[in-house]
């Protein structure tokens, strides 16, 4: 079932005179993986930050699940069903894996912090939160690490934890910023398998440098250079685009 869940139109972000993202449009569709590639400094992470609300766009519009979200706070956008992982691992290092994911899952409870009932409940006994947490940890393949402190697990496992936390909020749209960065072969293969498993229920945007993974996973490919989209289409179309070959992929990939 393909369904347009996120649509960004002519997004622009200027830092002073520099347009880090310049008139970029992206559509994210359920059951499709949309990869964004480009050299360092192309504006891929800025684009992710605009979609997730970490940055407010200078101009342009974003529609997420039918709601206009450009300029909304990250928490509001998260609650509308967008989950993101970070390029630089961004987790709760002193907490256990379970507590990291449980905290993410807990965010989906009705939570007015000023409600005194929320002060006296035991967080560990919220059944629906525990269920969501367990499911996300299971999906991400971290069940055997649940009780381990996040600071002490391997880099690859921390990347899996990133994804588990994102999944615990039950998003419909996933923005994954270099989920394979720094992973070994086996870990990367496991992550690719996970992303394929998540695909049917999610609209996904994947920012990634690992070209093998990109071409294995992506249904749609957007190539950015200097904040602009220079090509967009199916991997086959992009691969044969002469501008892309010149600017980014190089002869080796052609």
């Amino acid at each position, binding site marked *: 079932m393909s369904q347009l869940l996120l649509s960004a139109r002519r997004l622009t972000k200027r830092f002073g005179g520099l347009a880090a993202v310049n008139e970029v449009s992206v559509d994210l569709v359920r059951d499709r993986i949309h990869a964004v590639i480009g050299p360092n400094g192309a504006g891929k992470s800025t684009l992710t930050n605009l979609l*997730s609300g970490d940055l407010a766009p200078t101009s342009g519009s974003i529609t997420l699940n039918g709601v206009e979200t450009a300029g909304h706070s990250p928490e509001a956008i998260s609650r509308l069903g967008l989950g993101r992982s970070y390029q630089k691992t961004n987790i709760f290092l002193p907490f256990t894996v379970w507590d990291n994911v449980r905290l993410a899952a807990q965010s989906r409870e009705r939570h007015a*912090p000023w409600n005194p009932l929320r*002060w*006296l409940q035991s*967080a560990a006994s919220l059944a629906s939160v525990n269920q969501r947490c367990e499911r996300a940890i299971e999906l991400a393949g971290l069940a055997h690490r649940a009780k381990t402190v996040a600071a002490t697990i391997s880099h690859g496992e921390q990347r899996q934890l990133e994804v588990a*936390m994102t999944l615990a*909020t039950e998003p419909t749209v996933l923005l994954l910023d270099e989920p394979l960065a720094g992973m070994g072969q086996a870990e990367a293969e496991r992550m690719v398998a996970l992303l394929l498993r998540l695909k049917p229920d999610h609209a996904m945007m994947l920012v990634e440098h690992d070209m093998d993974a990109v071409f294995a996973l992506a249904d749609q490919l957007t190539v950015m250079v200097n904040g602009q989209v220079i090509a967009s289409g199916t991997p086959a179309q992009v691969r044969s685009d002469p501008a892309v070959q010149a600017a980014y992929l190089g002869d080796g990939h052609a």
Partner: protein
Amino acid sequence: MSTAKAQLEQLPRAMQVLLALGALALAAFPLVPLEAADFYLQMLTQMMILAIFAMSLDLLQGVSGMVSLGHAAYFGLAGYALAFLTPADAPIPLWWSLPLAAAGAGLAALVIGFFVVRTHGIYFIMVTMAFAQMVFFLFFDNKALGGSDGLYVNFRPDASALGIDLENKTQFYYLTLALLLGIYLFLRRLLFSPFGRALAGIRVNEHRMRAVGYGSFGHKLTAFTLAGTLAGVAGYLWAAQTGFVNPELMGFHMSAHAIMMVILGGMGNFAGAIVGAFAFEYVMHVFKDLPAIGGFDTGKHWQLWMGAFIVLVVLVAPRGLLGLGEKLLKRRGRASE
């Protein structure tokens, strides 16, 4: 990226037993026949009041990662509330004046918090201090508010509804102890509630908390307000006990005092704040009683020794006395295996 070390939240069994014994010792103390018993009762009452104050700060400093240098403002405001509410010729009932004074302090914290919890790190410290200084000088410079001399609280509150007489030092002591234990248990419960877990998450990585959907502003403002309210309970008791309020209660020194107590005992578990308050006050009395050596009155310069002591504790036990205790317990546990 935060590199915050894991805090001592779950207290080891042996430490829980020690704390329970400490509570029992406090409960039994008035039964011990002592010379100058009144003096010790008052001193312990004061320590317990400061322990409540320190716990309220720990909710911000240790649990939520917001180091307030202006927390005494709420302590002092509730004390002043009691002074203003108490007429010259009769006591006022405890049952409504304590909640009212604490709510007043909480309201001030809500209003001030609305501005300060938007800031982070060093700016948060600066802004909390700036607001507290404003409150301090509002009272200091205003004759109508007591000015620099402060105000007398003419009568201790009337607690006959609870069947106790607060003019009686022992009964005042037990009321304070009951409030100390009640607030401690409440805060321990809160620490492991959804709200408490969210605060801990905000301390460790606020950015990530927002990315998974938490409105950190509401959480931080609620914590700030609650901390101000509990500081108000302590300030009310202080004013009731001493029968006197002055601007020093809301001054910079008082705020710094509380920070040191929390650091000394160990942050983020409330028990540390209690231990820190007792240890700080005890050590202060020891230093104040130091004898003169030659022409040099060592006791008069207690703040010098106190400073050195705090530096030493921070170097030797960066997680406070409780953190040190946990380390020793662990080592002993390992040795006996």
